[in-house]
């Protein structure tokens, strides 16, 4: 046991975990800053400016504020589940980073069923919202939780089915190998990314991913104009912070997954000395994920919320048939190409 702990392989793994976890937690904190800043600029405001240059210390101030707020547990709440809900929400959100390849070697573990593992883990995240809403024993949280569970079940279908087209082409479920399978070029100059081969799947994936993470225009779990703050109306202090952290972590996860499956993962132009070459793939990966997150934030700033029945109709009557048609078409083409 001790020998294993001193083994260089184990130390390398430990280092990877520290780098990825630290990097992700830092990024999550600064996502709140980015979101506030971008939305402010869209609405012609300066956004946070007081704390540090460009308000860059704002996340730290926010964190301290969360820490010092009073931790309220409503009298009628179901204490055990009320306390457990933020944890149930956060742990799956962070667990999925253990299989995401941030670079050719910057991946904690490459599971053979990595993609399905992420879907399994993220599908558990809905319980955080459901339990939080139910255990608060209050009407707005309950309504938010019910909307959220119905929405997540509906959009998980099209999310999963949209990915099948990519899997048919890549022939593997391992995330690192999906990235490797996209490293050739089409016609000599276009990178063979799945976004060009599977544009419909990409569209369905992005829309469903926004719905899965409960972001505008699909944020029915929260919808502050109707339900106060949705499922976390009764939450305060660090518990609320955990819910928020989970939301941002889910955003990063689906963006990273989109990058891996449709945008070629860490692929990008390579140049410069050897040291730069080892760092470049991660830089490309982070940049691509950043583009997605920027898109998310812009959506929140510009698009109005749908109506609830529109959401359900759109999911079941448009996205689901579209992704099924995409699977049939893709498998036909793959079968013809193989024979």
């Amino acid at each position, binding site marked *: 046991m001790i020998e294993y702990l001193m083994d260089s392989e184990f130390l390398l793994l430990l280092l990877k975990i520290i780098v990825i976890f630290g990097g992700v937690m830092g990024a999550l904190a600064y996502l709140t800053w980015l979101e506030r800043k971008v939305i402010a600029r869209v609405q012609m405001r300066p956004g946070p400016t007081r704390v540090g240059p460009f308000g860059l210390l704002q996340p730290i101030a926010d964190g301290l504020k969360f820490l010092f707020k009073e931790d309220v547990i409503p009298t009628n709440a179901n204490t055990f589940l009320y306390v457990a809900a933020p944890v149930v929400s956060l742990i799956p959100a962070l667990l999925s980073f253990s299989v995401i390849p941030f670079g050719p070697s910057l991946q904690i573990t490459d599971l053979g*069923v990595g993609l*399905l*593992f992420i879907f399994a883990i993220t599908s*558990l995240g809905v319980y955080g919202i459901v339990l939080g809403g139910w255990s608060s024993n209050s009407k707005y949280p309950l309504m938010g939780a019910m909307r959220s569970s119905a929405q997540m079940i509906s959009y998980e279908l099209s999310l999963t089915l949209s990915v099948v087209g990519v899997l048919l082409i890549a022939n593997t479920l391992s995330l690192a190998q999906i990235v490797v399978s996209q490293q050739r070029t089409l016609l000599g100059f276009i990178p063979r990314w799945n976004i060009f081969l599977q544009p419909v799947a990409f569209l369905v994936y992005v829309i469903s991913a926004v719905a899965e993470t409960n972001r505008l225009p699909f944020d029915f779990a929260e919808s502050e104009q109707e339900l106060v703050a949705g499922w976390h109306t009764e939450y305060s202090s660090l518990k609320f912070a955990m819910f928020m952290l989970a939301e941002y972590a889910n955003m990063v996860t689906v963006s990273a997954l989109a990058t891996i499956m449709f945008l070629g993962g860490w692929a990008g132009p390579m140049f410069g000395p050897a040291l730069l070459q080892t760092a470049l793939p991660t830089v490309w990966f982070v940049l691509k994920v950043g583009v997605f997150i920027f898109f998310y934030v812009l959506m929140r700033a510009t698009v109005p919320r749908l109506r609830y029945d529109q959401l359900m109709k759109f999911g079941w009557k448009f996205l689901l048939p579209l992704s099924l048609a995409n699977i049939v078409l893709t498998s036909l083409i793959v079968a013809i190409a193989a024979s």
Partner: protein
Amino acid sequence: MMQTIFFVFAAVAVGAAINVLVQKHVMYSALSLILMLTAVSVLFILLRADFLAVIQVIIYAGAIMVLFVFVIMLLNLPQDEDGADRLWWLKFLGIPLGLFFLFLVIATLWNVESSVDTRAGISGSAGAIGHSLFTDFLLPFEATSLLILIALMGAVVFAKKDL
């Protein structure tokens, strides 16, 4: 090491399953069942059935149980009322009979060649299961799609207020 993991998760599975019966409110029963499902999925990983372990979490914990929890929330159920007290003596008959049944099953299983090492087995990868599904089990596989379609229509018909 492996044995420790097995015992821990077997204990979690059994404990959670018992908790499903003990809890008075269905919501707690459902949550306890989710715990049991995840524990069984870990046991699947120990048996090297990775694909099934993940599928178990996706379908059971991620879809079926969400449906249960959703319905429990939707109906806003009161506490479990204890069943009618007719045939109360069956409780006292049931427990010895149940234990006898357990004894029978375990006695039967004891005689199976139980010493087979589970490490030496096959790996249940997605590819192997998929290949088997689309060659040996193609007809049953197609039949399941029909089953799901029928279940879908049945659920819609039952849940509809006025037909």
